[in-house]
């Protein structure tokens, strides 16, 4: 027995292969975050006790700025996807569900954008 809707059968189109997008991007960002996080933690350890001049000089290095940008983009994307699943699991009533889903997504992108902009601001100050 087919599980497809009558409309779906008439159209005769296959899957758009988009159903696993959330799952796939969560894994993609996870894989990226393994080396990025370890690098970031190792760098922070080396910067322990460092003052403003040392920290900003570190961030301003081209490779560091690029890696920090990648860390923040993949990190906040990964966070948004993870928090989305948590909300979907525990918040069932609308409008609380949709409001919290949108708010979390917006907050992640806002804070991620602030973090990336801060890196670029330091990097381009020269």
């Amino acid at each position, binding site marked *: 027995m087919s599980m497809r809707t009558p409309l779906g059968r008439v159209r005769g189109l296959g899957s758009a292969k988009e159903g696993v997008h959330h799952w796939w991007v969560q894994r993609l960002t*996870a894989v990226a975050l393994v080396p990025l*996080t370890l690098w970031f933690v190792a760098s922070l*350890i080396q910067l322990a*006790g460092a003052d*403003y001049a040392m920290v900003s000089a570190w*961030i301003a290095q081209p490779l560091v700025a690029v890696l920090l940008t990648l860390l923040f983009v993949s990190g906040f994307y990964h966070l948004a996807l993870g928090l989305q699943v*948590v909300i979907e699991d525990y918040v069932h009533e609308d409008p609380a569900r949709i409001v919290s889903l949108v708010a979390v997504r917006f907050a992640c992108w806002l804070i991620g954008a602030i973090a990336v902009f801060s*890196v670029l601001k330091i990097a381009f100050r020269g």
Partner: protein
Amino acid sequence: MVERNRPLSPHIQIYRPQMTSVLSILHRITGVGLGVGALLVAYWVAAAAGGPDHFARAQALIGSWFGYLVLLGFSVALFFHLSNGIRHLFWDAGYGFELRSAYASGVAVLVMTAGLTLIAWVAAFTVLGGAR
């Protein structure tokens, strides 16, 4: 809406916790906690972009005893979520589903979490104690 009073599986009140389920719950809790940690990192880098005064204030906050407490929790959560996340990636690839392997990898995650946390803090205090 109709009131539903049917019992919920898996009866958490009378359910004996197992390492597999506890680690799974911890993965979610640490994930949410790392969201708070991400706020801290964003604040730190934004303070650096804001100039020496802002950065000094951020460093003073992070360098306080409360800041160290938060950093300790942050590092444990990060290393656990990282280790268990790698375990999840192996599961995604189709490996380690046997009960015995699931427990063995769970122990490995806990050992890795403790080890990485210890290494990180010993290294950080070594750097702090060094000539600067």
